[in-house]
């Protein structure tokens, strides 16, 4: 099986501050990989490097066979990205947002129309296309954003805290779609704070102060540390790492991830 993401010793420094330190992992195509960790741990920075947006300070990573440093444009055309913030235009209708992102992914004419129909059908947006995004609820906005990210049939879908602040029902619907997409062969990289979401991933990575401190399938990881649930495991990691973290002894030096 070929690798969707191959990440070898990725490092990102902002001045003297190291946001991401020596992150190494591999995930095969069609897998769901979850990133968990506290806010500011470096999840978003790692994701942005893998999307070809941030240039790594050191290390090497290939995404879908393309190098993040030298071929970011090839990566951008083949991945779908949805961030924690709503990435839609409020004053545009659902259809206009879809049309804009179709254009941005260089889809035109018949192809664009066919892809729009496909995602509208798939996400169930049929009755909402003429509505302004500002009139939609959070859950629906999330689904429209997902639809926009799927327009160009990406091979890798990157979701940065996609369900933060979304109601449980919408969350369930959203994850049903994600699992369906993975079954069809799409690779998914997702960061989340919800342990139930993390449990349903094929692979998990715990990110802590810029380091990937544990990586594996959820079952493996629980067994390794002898914990019953992912919640327990998460809290165990946080407590173990926090006591070793130099910044907790040196007061007042924070940084963004």
């Amino acid at each position, binding site marked *: 099986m070929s690798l969707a993401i191959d990440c070898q010793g990725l490092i990102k420094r902002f001045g003297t501050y190291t946001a991401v330190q020596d992150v190494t992992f591999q995930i095969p195509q069609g897998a769901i990989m979850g990133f968990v960790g506290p806010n500011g741990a470096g999840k978003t920075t790692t994701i*942005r490097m893998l*999307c070809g*947006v941030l240039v790594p300070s050191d290390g090497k990573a290939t995404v879908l066979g393309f190098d993040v440093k030298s071929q970011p*444009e*090839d990566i*951008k*055309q083949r*991945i779908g*990205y949805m*961030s924690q*913030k*709503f*990435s*839609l*235009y*409020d*004053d*545009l209708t659902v259809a*206009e947002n879809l*049309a*804009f*992102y*179709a*254009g*941005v*992914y*260089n*889809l*035109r004419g018949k192809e664009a129309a066919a892809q729009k129909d496909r995602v509208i059908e798939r996400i169930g947006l049929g009755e909402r296309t003429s509505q302004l995004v500002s009139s939609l609820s959070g859950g629906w906005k999330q689904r429209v954003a997902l639809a926009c990210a799927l327009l160009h049939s990406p091979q890798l879908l*990157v979701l940065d805290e996609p369900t933060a602040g979304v109601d449980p029902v919408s969350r369930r619907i959203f994850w049903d779609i994600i699992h369906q997409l993975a079954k069809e062969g799409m690779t998914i990289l997702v960061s989340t704070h919800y342990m139930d979401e993390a449990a349903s991933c094929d692979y998990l990575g715990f990110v802590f102060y810029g380091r990937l401190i544990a990586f594996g399938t959820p079952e493996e990881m629980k067994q390794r540390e002898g914990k019953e649930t992912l919640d327990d495991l998460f809290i165990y990691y946080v407590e173990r790492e926090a006591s070793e973290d130099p910044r907790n002894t040196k007061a007042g030096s924070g940084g963004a991830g």
Partner: protein
Amino acid sequence: MLRFSWTRFLAVLKKEFIHIRRDRASLIMAVAMPLGMLLLFGYAVNTDVEHLPTVVWDQSQTQESRDFVSSVRNTQYMDPDDYVSGYKQIENYLDSGKARAAVIIPPDFGKQLQEQQATVQVLVDGSDPTVARAVTSAVQMLGFDKSLQLQSQRLAAMGISGGTTLPLDIETRVWYNPDMKSRNFNIPALIGLILQNVIAMLTSFSIVREKERGTMEQLIVTPIRSLELLLGKLLPFVLIGFVSLSLILVTGIFWFGVMPMGSIPLLVLLSTIFLFTILAIGLLISSIAKTQLQAMQMTFILILPSILLSGFVFPRETMPKLLQLMGGLLPLTYFLEIVRGIFLKGVGLQFLWQDTLALCLFAVILLAVASKKFKKNLD
């Protein structure tokens, strides 16, 4: 993959037009602000001194004194409509602002005029120096003319005919704006000021809005190139700029009757260059500002000095060197020279090439810096 994509560019362009159509505030700003400013400056900002309310104390009440008052009226500077008797009342008129000038004719005016020398006192409200200066010189001129007329009559009566010719006659001709209307001076300049204010603000808003909403972050992850995004976002404002420009031109010509003496195509061409410097300024503002409020404040920081230092109101020649230099840093300064040159003097590039060159330099440098900053923000 790195080629310019028309599909992506057109997607941005289409989206921008939808934004503008749905955003009533910017639509109003694009149409109502030029018209509003034009009417405001066309009517309110009038430095012409005309028809000042004037009060008269005619103690003489003779044919001569009435003749004098009507010749005061004929200067067009003063309207001697109110008659009083006594200094107290005059003071009252001037204090309250009901009159800006007072004419006091002595009781023996008629007699003195015939025999030796008559004295007429004119009091002027000097709060506004421009007004006071204009009135003073107008009445002095009047007095001089009157005296000359009377003197030659007297000489003629005495049988000396040569007395009617003056040894020195200064003929003045005012060129370019013969009626000396401040409207003719202000309205062409408004093209520059309005374009600058409206376009800089709208452009910076449109980009800052994407940052504020977080959509810029999303765009970074898509294959869109900064040039496609930049052109797609700026082109609508080039069009709005042209709409504003034609609106001002049409209103200026047909409503205020300010006809350009020179070539309109040249005016449009040079306005386009100016428009690009303004787009670049808007772009620069948007790369620094994080919110629309900041963008608005920065635009105002630009607007104030450009009204004061560009020569829009005050002549640059009389400013201290430092302020002149500061004014030289504003593209508007050069554009005002151009627009007034074309409108009032009707001159072409043979006289305007230096200002045009300066404007081109501004356009190239500002656009290069702004798009570089924009690109850096995007990467």
